[in-house]
């Protein structure tokens, strides 16, 4: 018989190692492949630098222009809200900081639990609202694929199971924690092979856009 503790120790032990191995191999294959593609040499004379405009665009894309905000206020506000919420909960919750410290040997100050708890709730609301909007909006629904719903579900489950584990809603606790860890592992395993890769590639793409505009001497 498999008990909840067996499940937790499997999820925390061998399964976690498998998940991070697939995540690291997959992500680095994709990133290295992208970088190895290279670009044809540009013989035109550069009209400006690449590095600074690249970094500037990296930042500016978070800072939505007024036109976009006016056209799609829901996407900008709710999208930004839950993304920030997700990142804050991921990086500033004490148990997560402890995990990062044990894996990478680096740590930073964490937020008090009640604050993380509140942000988690906001993130869950944001994600729910985003799904409803996606389903109600004819254009968004038309553009959505099965993969979009899959990664929405995964992201939502990761946050929801963490929230339930923290509030000790599911008993016994090893089961609750094990389910949370397992959903995170599925998330990590699928990350390199789905649109979740944007976690890494969006920065590369934004820098590249900015850099190429910078070289041409135009604003982006």
């Amino acid at each position, binding site marked *: 018989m498999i008990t909840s503790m067996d499940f937790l120790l499997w999820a925390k032990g061998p399964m976690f190692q498998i998940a991070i191995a697939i995540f*690291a191999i997959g992500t680095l294959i994709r990133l290295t492949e992208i970088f190895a593609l290279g670009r044809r040499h540009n013989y035109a004379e550069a009209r400006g630098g690449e590095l600074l405009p690249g970094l500037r665009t990296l930042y500016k894309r978070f800072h939505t222009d007024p036109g976009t905000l006016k056209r799609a206020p829901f996407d900008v506000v709710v999208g930004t809200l839950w993304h920030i919420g997700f990142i804050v909960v991921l990086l500033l919750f004490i148990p997560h900081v402890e995990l990062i410290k044990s894996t990478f040997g680096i740590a930073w100050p964490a937020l008090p639990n009640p604050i993380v708890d509140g942000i988690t709730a906001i993130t869950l609301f944001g994600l729910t609202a985003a799904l409803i909007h996606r389903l109600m909006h004819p254009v968004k629904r038309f553009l959505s694929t099965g993969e979009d719903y899959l990664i929405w579900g995964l992201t939502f489950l990761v946050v929801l199971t963490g929230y339930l584990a923290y509030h000790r809603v599911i008993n016994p606790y090893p089961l609750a924690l094990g389910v949370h860890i397992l959903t995170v592992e599925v998330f990590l395993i699928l990350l390199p092979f789905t649109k979740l890769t944007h976690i890494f590639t969006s920065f590369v793409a934004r820098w590249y856009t900015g850099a190429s505009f910078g070289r041409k001497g135009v604003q982006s």
Partner: protein
Amino acid sequence: MALSNTAKKTLGESLRDQGVSRRGFLKFCAATASMMALPPSMAPAIAEALEQARRPSVIWLSFQECTGCTESLTRGFSPTVENLIFDVISLDYHHTLQAAAAVAAEQAREQAMHENDGEYLVIVDGSLPGPGANPGYSTIAGISNLQMLQDTVAGAAAVVAVGTCAAFGGLPKADPNPSGAVALSDVVKDKPIINVSGCPPVPMVITGVLAQYLTFGTLPELDEYNRPLAFFGQSIHDRCYRRPFYDKGLFAEGFDDEGAKKGWCLYRMGCKGPMAYNACATMKWNGGVSWPIESGHPCLGCSEPDFWDAGGFYKALSVPIGDSGDVLLGAGATGIAIGAAAGILSRRKTAAAKAEHEPVTADELEQKL
């Protein structure tokens, strides 16, 4: 240990002989009722039943253990009623406590089994080498632990596994488990088993289980690990007096830092309270003096299966088991190597396509048509 004259006495008579007052006895019954989450009206019923109860014959088998469980159950700062209850069960066989040795000791066990067939309780502490393991790792009087267990359990009314080794395999079963140790429940399949886990278990828990058995003649309600729900129904975390600090986000980060001195939550020090189910937080140790977290040490989660292999004692509960850093480095290097190889391959493909490219003119194409 088997004293035939006292064995015939009821529990009430034995307690009075030992100088336990009626008031003390009733207090114990009320505490037992509340401990087992029974309504207060059950206290007199418990008292009445215990008064009339005949001392049950108990055979205590000690296998691969450290005697910590026996120490826990027998050592008190003052003789409490629960100690006396323990004194007045007919403990017919117990390596550490019995005066008899060698052949006489084994005879006491066989006699108890014979005289109380189908009615005696078997208490086991320690794990035992499993059916597939070398029985030589642990023997008593030349009898393998497995053989002795099977012989003794055959006529038992119920079996109580005392301590995490008997309940879940404990330290002997910890990786790499050299002696092939197994838990009691791995080999005893046809008798009711109550697991009283803990390394060691809280003394009151074992007396509580015995009191329930004597009172109702039934075994207590059990959780998924066959542990009495009355004692193992709630986690250390949910009952911890330091819980408000967890909820406020105030943590000790060292044994001598400001947080430790102020008595803040020990989660970051590796406390396994959130996943440990036991009664320490409410019943405490040494007659209610203190318990590990109160004395400033994180809970090890000793009442849970595989607690030795559940990550480091001083690593937070969220920290994965194993060397994640090394796995990430290895996997990362592999990923870069494969990615680079794929990149080189696609560049070669592009170069080969370029080399093989033969320009055609519009005229040539027209001729082909």
